[in-house]
């Protein structure tokens, strides 16, 4: 029972960070219809930026977010404006290929700069543990959970009640009508992609404490993000956060209760099942 509770709590916390990863993807997909296969490599890049700031100035990953977020936002804007935009609207495969190309560039750029050995960027709260009842809560997980939900709510409020948010939703619903109403669709698309990548800088810092990083990890994050993204019906914010938690809990429970292989396979099995039998995601779209 304690084990189960522990797994649930840990899965919930880690899953909320997964949800945050997928929010960026959902935002971009809704506005531009693009699935970014370099998503996980942008997370990787965010982590290595934190690592570089740590080795150079001994900055805590949580503090270095002040610098990494603007860098990643600028990078996201540039990638969208100069690489994705010229070919957006062509065949889906072309865009997937292009983002795979970008993934190769980031992954191996990191490999060339930082080498292939796993490294870590420690944080001051990494070793902090809280005991609630019999459940051990790691400080980093708690921070990840709180920040993820805060950011998700912030994004939601931004989308609902600012002009920028309304423009984004308008483009999501009907780009042509939005353009006729005076929304600069191109600008909104660049902006959402930049925001989507900027959010990853934060998610990277949240996932970083205690995690050994290496340049080749990007694809793993991309796959986790895709799982959550599909589980959440691709654009529904609430469902995406929920999907993150489902995957997080499935991972935690799988590693405790099942054989090693099955535990690792569980998230993918859930993914395939959802994809086939409920392609609209876990929650009906309102």
């Amino acid at each position, binding site marked *: 029972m304690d084990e189960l509770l522990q797994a649930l709590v840990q899965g919930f916390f880690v899953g909320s960070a997964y949800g945050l990863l997928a929010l960026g993807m959902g935002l971009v997909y809704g506005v531009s219809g693009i*699935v970014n296969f370099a998503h996980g490599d942008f997370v990787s890049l965010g982590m290595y930026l934190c690592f570089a700031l740590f080795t150079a100035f001994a900055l805590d990953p949580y503090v270095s977010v002040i610098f990494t977020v603007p860098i990643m936002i600028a990078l996201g804007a540039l990638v969208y404006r100069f*690489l994705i935009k*010229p*070919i957006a609207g*062509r065949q*889906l*495969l*072309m865009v*997937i*290929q*292009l983002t*795979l*190309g*970008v*993934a*190769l*560039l980031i*992954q*191996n*750029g*990191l*490999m*060339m700069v930082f*080498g*292939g050995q796993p490294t870590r960027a420690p944080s001051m709260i990494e070793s902090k543990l809280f005991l609630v009842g019999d459940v051990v809560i790691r400080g980093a997980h708690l921070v990840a959970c709180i920040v993820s939900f805060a950011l998700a709510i912030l994004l939601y409020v931004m989308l609902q009640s600012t002009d920028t948010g309304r423009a984004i939703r308008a483009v999501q619903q009907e780009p042509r009508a939005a353009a006729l109403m005076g929304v600069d669709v191109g600008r909104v698309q660049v902006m959402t992609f930049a925001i989507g990548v900027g959010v990853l800088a934060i998610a990277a810092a949240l996932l970083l404490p205690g995690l050994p990083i290496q*340049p080749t990890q990007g*694809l793993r994050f991309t*796959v986790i993000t*895709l*799982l959550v993204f*599909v589980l959440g019906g691709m654009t529904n914010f609430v469902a995406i956060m929920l999907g993150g938690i489902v995957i997080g809990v499935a991972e935690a429970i799988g590693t405790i209760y099942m054989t*090693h*292989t099955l535990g*690792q*396979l569980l998230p*993918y*099995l859930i*993914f*395939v099942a959802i*994809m*086939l039998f409920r*392609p609209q995601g876990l929650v009906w779209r309102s």
Partner: protein
Amino acid sequence: MRPDFWPALRSPFPWIILAFAATMPFLLPNYYLHILTITLVYAALASAWNIVGGIAGQISLAHSLFVGAGAMLASALLVKLGVNMWLGMVIAAAASAAMGAAVSFIDYRFRLGHLSFALITMAFAEMAEIYVTNTEFLGGASGLFLPKDKGDILAFQFGGISGVYWIMLAMTTLCVVVNFAILSSPLGYNLRSIRDNENAAQAIGVGLLRNKTLAMTISAVLTSIVGTIYARYLAFVDPYLLVSPVLTIEIVLFATVGGLGTALGPAVGAFLLAPLGEILRGHLGGFLPGLHYFVYGLVVVGVIMLMPAGVWPSIRARIARKSVQEARAS
């Protein structure tokens, strides 16, 4: 068969090129022959993928499943049960065909869109890697070592690099010819109509399940056989190389760079990129690991931006334009 298939076979050029390629083991030192062999492996894989990904437009990311079956299953049958590798190759190809047909059936039954199909096949590829690296019979995470190559053809041994080179040359040629044959046959027209508009294709009577399954099965069998030969050549069968989703990504990149949906494009792409990658890795991999993939990334992004149809169609269009201009000038 479209009428230009047979004349193309009768034309002397492909045969001259093939005969020239066959003399390579006598001309090249082993290092370059190795690069050429690897290139042929990738050219064959990219051509086989093209049947599904290019001609039929189904973005399958599950081809590492078929390479893996060909390599791991055939090797495991030999090492663990002593099954002759020729038989192992056939069993693995049959297993790949079954998996390919199953994937096609799921695609048909649930009417997956392009994106869903790509995502599901990617999930299958990830699951395959996890499964193989955790299964003792298939070599687990540490892989399998094949017995030494003594040149016994009956035991699937080709006597070192020259033999493998020749068998791969034949296999790559087969893959390209199959592409060419499909493009000039009714199947090719059906697949292309499915690629361009599935609903319209179905409305005019193109059987989705039949055509998709046929394309996927042919592609899976070819891929699996190449996997078995590749495994024999490598002698150490590493699941993190042969069942890795990264392998599929490489195949897809080569095919796209060369030109999707054309008979020769994917092979051209492999001949452009694979030697480049091998040479960069050989000469600079020591102090700059990752450089060759970085260059792949640059080439892929560049080609997609500048020649979205791929290198081979662009070259062909340019030649055609020039010959028209020359005809006008004369």
